[in-house]
């Protein structure tokens, strides 16, 4: 993880004028704030077919013909997908990678921000590129992508057998597999979808479809003993490396571990399962009854259910705090450990849990104005844009990044200023 203790947690307020940028460029696209809040950046148009990235009012050294997917890596490096002379690559802080491709997309970051990967296509062949190093092997198609937790490995679902248009039976024999760092499994499948890589990078698990009707999970190319009428994305236990995935059985869903049922309960839906960092707690978004949604922890659903949607499940490293977003009709709420907050919003973002578990915060929006909510207390500031709150390592302070009246603001407040 990024060492946030080195960030400036003292200065109460810093400001970067933002609106004046609009006078210098034809247009300014949506801004992005750096994780530490020190920078704000946006793609800007300089001239017809000429774009640049403006960071705190300064543009990168050289412009590009096209720029998209401007995103900060967790360590604060600013990346974008850029194109010149019909070639695409990744630019990091304005410096393009040496390797150029026909196209690049789907930027991935390791949690510590040290590694950056993209999917790339060159001359109709596909591969992953990790830190400017493309896989040695390329494939004729590549559909799903993943990165190991430490960022040292990349994986993708790849097509290894050719089939023509309408060759349905050849397709059904299996033309796809998964590849880790370019090394494809020997086993082929009808379909391969979401993958997970184990923390040590030795295990690649993926959802696979064995024929039109049987689904399972394959780990390093080896399929579980059991197959199911459907499965969803696997996750890997952070400590013991076991693989857990939602599986369908007799028209309902539950979780299975290494091919055996893990939970006794059966639900109309189970997905987005997530372990705590110590692997002791396993939570998932479930539908306990058709049209109702909640979170189940170790197979036991919360008492409270919601009608429209539950999303953005977040589990604290020790598993003691579990938060999610819920939606009833058009309104969003934050729910923590089975208790829904009273305030409702037009939109909410993934909850953030403070390192000491004392606080849960989230970026929220009401009638086009953005703010932050912490422990069910709404910060009384209406902003034109806001980013996720970041709690200081000691949990005392919160970093707030906002755009107000044409100014970008970086504030550090004691959390109690919001929670009272």
């Amino acid at each position: 993880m990024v060492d946030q203790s080195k960030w400036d947690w003292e200065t109460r307020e810093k400001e970067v004028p933002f609106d004046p940028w609009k006078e210098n460029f034809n247009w300014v696209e949506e801004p992005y704030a750096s994780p530490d809040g020190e920078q704000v950046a946006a793609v800007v148009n300089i001239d017809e077919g000429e774009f640049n990235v403006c960071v705190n009012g300064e543009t990168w050294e050289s412009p590009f013909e096209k720029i998209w997917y401007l995103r900060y890596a967790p360590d604060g490096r600013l990346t974008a997908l850029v194109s010149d002379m019909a070639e695409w690559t990744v630019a990091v802080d304005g410096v393009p990678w040496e390797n150029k491709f026909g196209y690049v997309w789907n930027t991935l970051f390791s949690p510590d921000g040290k590694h950056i990967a993209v999917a790339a296509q060159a001359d109709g062949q596909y591969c992953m590129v990790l830190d400017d190093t493309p896989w040695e092997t390329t494939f004729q198609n590549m559909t799903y992508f993943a990165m190991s937790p430490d960022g040292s490995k990349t994986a993708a679902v790849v097509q290894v057998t050719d089939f023509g248009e309408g060759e349905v039976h050849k397709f059904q024999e299996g033309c796809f597999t998964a590849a880790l760092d370019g090394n494809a499994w020997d086993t082929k499948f009808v379909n391969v979808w979401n993958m997970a890589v184990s923390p040590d990078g030795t295990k690649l698990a993926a959802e696979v479809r064995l024929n039109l009707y049987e689904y399972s999970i394959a780990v390093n190319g080896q399929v579980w003993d059991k197959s199911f009428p459907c499965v969803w994305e696997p996750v890997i236990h952070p400590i013991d490396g076991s693989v857990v995935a939602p599986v369908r059985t007799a028209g309902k869903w539950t979780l299975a571990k290494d091919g055996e049922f893990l939970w006794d309960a059966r639900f109309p839906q189970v997905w987005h399962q997530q372990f705590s960092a110590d692997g002791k707690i396993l939570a998932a978004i479930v539908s306990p009854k058709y049209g109702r949604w909640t979170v189940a922890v170790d197979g036991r659903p919360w008492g409270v259910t919601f009608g429209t949607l539950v999303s953005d499940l977040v589990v604290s490293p020790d598993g003691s705090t579990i938060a999610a977003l819920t939606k009833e009709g058009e309104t969003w709420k934050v729910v923590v450990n089975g208790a829904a907050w009273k305030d409702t919003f037009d939109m909410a973002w993934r909850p953030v849990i403070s390192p000491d578990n004392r606080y849960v915060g989230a970026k929220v929006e009401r009638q086009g104005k953005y703010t932050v909510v912490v422990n069910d207390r709404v910060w009384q500031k209406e902003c034109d844009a806001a980013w996720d709150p970041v709690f200081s390592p000691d949990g005392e302070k919160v970093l707030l990044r906002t755009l107000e009246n044409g100014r970008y603001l970086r504030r550090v407040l004691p959390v109690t200023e919001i929670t009272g």
Partner: protein
Amino acid sequence: MAEPAVTQDQEKEEEQKVVDDGIDVGISRLTTDKIETVINQVLKTETGARLKTYVNTCIHCGLCSEACHYYMSHDKDPKWSPVGKVKQTIWEMIRKKGRLAPEEIRRVVEIAHTECNLCRRCLQFCPFGIDIAYLISMARRICHKLGVTPKYIQDTAHSHSVSMNQMWVKGDEWPDTLQWQEEEARGEFPTLRIPLEKEGADIMYSVIAPEPKFQAQLIYQAAAIMETAGVNWTMPADKGWDNSDMAMFTGDNEIMGRIKRSHFETAVRLRVKRIVMGECGHAFRSVYDTGNRWLGWSHPPIPIVHAIDFYYELLKENRIPIKEKFKEPVTLHDPCNVIRGGGLMEKSRYVAHALCDTVVEMHPNREYNYCCCAGGGVINCGPPYKLKRVKSNKVKAEQLMEARTRGAKVIISPCHNCHSGLKDIKNYYDLHMDIKFFGDIIYQIMEKPE
């Protein structure tokens, strides 16, 4: 109406010659025992009181017959009537306790996939409200489980399974196409953007894969409309951008669920308030009514707004300045999935009248309109069935012809499948009418930068 160009003998021959790998190979692998097992497994574990009650309640009155364009177009031959088709499929399976011969399954596939559009008009005709489309869908589900599905639509379902889109559009081709269209459109609208992956936009705009594949101008037009109306919108750069769903029509519910999940979760990820979709009917059915249910969402978790509804909203709020109304008289086709299935009949008329000088109504219209005979996956079964498809909609040709005699020159069809199906019909029956989407007309008549 002019006589069709091909002779009847040629047509007969062509009709009999249908070769379809998806069916032929599938049938060759079947045995009566396997068929029996699969049918009974599906009927026992995947259906319940609904199917039983429908079968027990039907009093064989035949009142659904005239709802069906197939029946009406084939001189009221009862084998094409809705109940006639149920008789030849589901009733037969129940009567024989699942023991059908492989060749009998061939007939089931033909009926379920190429002789019913699941347009649900017959549901409105049945005095008991028996969901005949559901019964035919179950026949398709059984065919899927037997591995016998027409090749072209099966291939499309495979495309969905691999790429989460209908047309094998690869991961790079999608954003590349959007950027290409954005660049093209900037020739006309210098500051136009197709904002990719813009979290927190009001609207996610989703399309069906034929748009980037063959009809990129539709994306251009949509972007032009969004730009002109000042909409805060975005499009996803990764999977989930395609709202279409042929797996729903092949009975592959598991893939249907997977692609709908991808679509909705993409909208959730982008933090949009609503999903606006292009002028497509079957996709609306899938995201609005069918796919979400398989996943356990009783209603779409992010509201779905069909293009008709969206244009209605923009026009009502005067957000699209119109230079001059469309001059040529138009007639308005009511696509089953958004009208009978979504209640957009009056909004569709509001949009038509706001855009066009003269709107000539077809009869019957609104939720009673005749189907295009392309939807429900039928056109997606491909060329082998094209002739049957156009011949099975003589009644639509007559309906269009009648509107033409009252002056209509252009058919507005706010649905992709209807669009393609009506085009085949107008060509076959020599109707000399033009077909447009609402988007075509809006783009044509709206004010653009000098």
